[in-house]
């Protein structure tokens, strides 16, 4: 064998996999505990003890970010670092980059865990982190990309296994998504405004949000599945062809489906129809993938009952099938009309996150532990128990929350026989589902208990590790430059046209196929092209077609004070419980008033449409209550509304508003093209804000409220709430006294 003379010796870097594996389970515990906490304070808001950083609005983003980027993220990296080295028969490109990636990512998570409870947020779901952290994420991701593609470049196995394809799609697409959704103009170190507004911002956000699910929680986990499932089952994947089909259909279809998050909103009709169509087509590949996974176990089912790893995988893959069946269902407009803004979405997400991402991760960790720590798993029994209580936990959670979602959705749209809303009082629909929220707390506790067992099991396994880890040395010949191994076609003597046809066939057969198959660069380019092209065709019309966002002459920028109030709304995370989007559905216009128009949001940087109504929609709340009502409600919601689940915000009436920061905020908005006129002159913004604040404070006093609130945060928030959704009710500018336009909105003093 002349080849062996050229063989090279190399080892794999498992230390980095051990690090990522531990980070996975530790952050997994943090993420699920945070989830349990927000589930609990949801039913007992008093548990936030009047502490801003303990309220639902601030902690829910902490929970989601920890689950996605800390738990699932580290799991993905553990899977990538372990399997990539082995599939490519090479060490990662650089140990230094691996370490930088690991520590950089953990630092980002810590930064998130500090800033989010402090109310430092961009308020875009799963993209809440402020711009300095976003830059850090981009840097660490690039380091990861170099490390990963570098490993591909120096690989010793020519063929790229399909898991690597899924990783490639992840690395490229996440970078694109992250950058384009986070284009912002800073208004300070911890505050920024996105360059997009209203409809366009919403569109970008859900293009991002949906594809983050696709390329952060789906494709890398499919890579994980296609590698670790065959390993654990001891047999190759059922159909390799099907796995490739699975890959290309996800890359081609997923990116189009984002608009399904915005049905019945001010988003143009064509866009949401497109989103729906593509979402429904996703049924096919997702089920293909699930079947491929489950059939891999054919003939090994007897082992499933013995092996907790396989159990986790089987249930994980089944949840993948369930969640991807349900997703397209939810994207169908008529279903969406019922499900959207309810807990149905939350149940859907958790069947995916706990069932698919969680269980695939646990399966992988239990499989990896003996390999990484070079000893037996400490307790198989404990892993079995983890599996059962985890499964039970998920079932309790999702069954209760599906029931809550459907109940609330039906109550919102119920009319009585006289044609009036059957439950006009929103809080009735809240109180009804509280028992299901308690079941969720129970189910969540079971799941968290399982995570604790996993942590204990891994720690004990680690304790029994050998003194020094063995580092097996592997051997393989280097790949060398790719010189094309396809035989040149012997072109028979034919007329030109026919020989041209032969050439073409050669091109298709050899170049086309093999390039796709064998050349990672080309593969990456294809993924990038398909993602970018699809995104552009989706996005450009939304940005450049006038008719999509018809302007409304009475819609004007927020006053400086209202802008400051809006920023408090953002910081407190009110959007986690309140939508600002009245859909053109009768039950909604009946409940909230005139439906929302795209033109009403042109100055909304960022948009605040929200995705869940734990409380009522707020888009038409302006003028609905007197100032005093808001003051009392914010101080203690239960005092005005019995049974309210809204957390109390007593500090807003005590904390000074930072008037000095208003000028840079207005300036940043002006940079984005918001026509602020004279307010952007130095010092003017603060002055205007103070004038409006003292006016509102006076009105508050007239209504019987306390004095001395004009410099407090609550005044700005009230100013914003009273302005919400009122612009379209005003007379067009021509008929209005120009003196009044700079004034605050008249407070509805009914």
């Amino acid at each position, binding site marked *: 064998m002349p080849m062996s003379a050229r063989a090279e010796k190399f080892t794999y870097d498992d230390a980095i996999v051990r690090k990522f594996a531990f980070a996975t389970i530790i952050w997994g515990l943090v993420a699920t505990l945070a989830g349990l906490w927000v589930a609990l304070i949801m039913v007992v808001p008093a548990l936030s003890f009047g502490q801003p950083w303990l309220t639902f609005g601030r902690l829910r983003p902490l929970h989601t970010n920890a689950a996605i980027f800390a738990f699932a993220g580290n799991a993905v990296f553990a899977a990538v670092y372990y399997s990539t080295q082995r599939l490519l028969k090479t060490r990662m490109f650089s140990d230094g980059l691996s370490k930088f990636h690991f520590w950089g990512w953990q630092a980002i998570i810590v930064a998130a865990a500090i800033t989010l409870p402090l109310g430092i947020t961009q308020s875009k779901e799963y993209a809440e982190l402020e711009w300095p952290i976003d830059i850090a994420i981009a840097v660490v991701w690039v380091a990861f990309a170099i490390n990963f593609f570098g490993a591909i470049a120096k690989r010793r196995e020519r063929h790229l296994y399909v898991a690597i394809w899924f990783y490639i799609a992840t690395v490229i697409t996440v970078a694109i998504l992250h950058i384009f959704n986070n284009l912002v103009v800073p208004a300070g170190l911890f505050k920024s405004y996105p360059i997009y507004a209203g409809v366009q911002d919403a569109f970008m956000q859900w293009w991002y949000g949906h594809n983050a699910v696709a390329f952060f929680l789906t494709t890398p986990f499919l890579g994980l599945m296609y590698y670790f499932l065959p390993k654990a089952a001891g047999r190759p994947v059922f159909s390799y062809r099907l796995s490739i089909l699975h890959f290309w259909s996800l890359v081609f279809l997923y990116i189009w489906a984002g608009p399904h998050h915005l049905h019945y909103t001010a988003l143009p009709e064509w866009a949401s129809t497109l989103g729906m169509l593509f979402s429904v087509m996703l049924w096919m590949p997702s089920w293909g993938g699930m079947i491929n996974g489950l059939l891999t176990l054919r003939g090994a089912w007897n082992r499933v009952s013995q092996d907790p790893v396989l159990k986790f995988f089987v249930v994980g893959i089944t949840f993948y099938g369930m969640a991807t069946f349900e997703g397209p269902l939810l994207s169908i407009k008529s279903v969406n009309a019922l499900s959207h803004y309810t807990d149905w979405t939350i149940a859907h997400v958790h069947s995916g996150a706990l069932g698919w991402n969680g269980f695939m991760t646990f399966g992988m960790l239990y499989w990896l532990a003996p390999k990484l720590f070079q000893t037996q798993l400490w307790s198989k029994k404990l892993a079995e128990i983890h599996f059962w209580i985890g499964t039970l936990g998920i079932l309790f959670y999702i069954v209760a929350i599906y029931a809550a979602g459907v109940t609330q959705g039906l109550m919102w749209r119920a009319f009585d026989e006289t044609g009036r809303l059957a439950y006009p009082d929103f809080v009735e629909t809240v109180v009804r589902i509280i028992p299901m929220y308690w079941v969720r707390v129970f189910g969540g506790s079971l799941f968290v208990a399982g995570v604790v067992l996993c942590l204990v099991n891994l720690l004990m396994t680690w304790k029994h590790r050998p003194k020094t880890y063995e580092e097996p040395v592997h051997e393989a010949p280097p790949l*060398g430059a790719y010189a094309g191994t396809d035989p040149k076609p012997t072109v028979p003597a034919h007329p030109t046209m026919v020989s041209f046809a032969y050439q073409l066939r050669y091109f298709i057969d050899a170049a086309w196929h093999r390039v796709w198959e064998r050349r990672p660069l080309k593969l990456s380019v294809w993924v990038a092209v398909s993602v970018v092209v699809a995104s552009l065709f989706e996005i450009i019309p939304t940005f450049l077609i006038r008719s999509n966002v018809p302007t409304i002459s009475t819609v004007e920028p927020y006053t400086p004070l209202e802008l400051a109030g809006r920023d408090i709304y953002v910081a407190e995370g009110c959007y986690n419980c309140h939508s600002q989007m009245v859909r053109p559905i009768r039950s909604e216009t009946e409940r909230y008033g005139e439906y929302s128009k795209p033109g009403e949001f042109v100055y909304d940087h960022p948009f605040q449409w929200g995705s869940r109504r734990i409380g009522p929609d707020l888009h038409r709340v302006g003028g609905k209550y007197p100032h005093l009502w808001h003051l009392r409600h914010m101080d203690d919601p239960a005092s005005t509304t019995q049974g309210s689940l809204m957390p109390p915000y007593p500090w807003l009436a005590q904390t000074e508003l930072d008037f000095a920061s208003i000028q840079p905020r207005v300036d940043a908005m002006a940079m984005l093209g918001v026509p602020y006129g004279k307010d952007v002159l130095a010092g003017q913004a603060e002055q205007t804000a103070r004038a409006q604040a003292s006016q509102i404070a006076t009105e508050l006093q007239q209504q019987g409220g306390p004095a001395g609130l004009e410099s407090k945060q609550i005044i700005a928030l009230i100013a914003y709430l009273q302005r919400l959704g009122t612009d379209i009710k005003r007379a067009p500018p021509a008929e209005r006294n120009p003196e009044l336009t700079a004034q605050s909105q008249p407070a509805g003093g009914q």
Partner: protein
Amino acid sequence: MKLSDVMSAMRLETYAEIAMVLFMLAFAGVVYQLLRRRNVAEFEHARQLPLSEDLAPTPLSEEK
């Protein structure tokens, strides 16, 4: 005149549908190529890759 005026005049919204059709065609092409493909040996090789690490690494000569 703004870019958006031009784009609106072109009725760009239909372009999304055209792009969708193109994507469907491209996708159909991929599926066709994949199903038509007779090179089973290569697939079989790839399929075994996750398991092959415990075996001897695939020598280059086997790659055809």
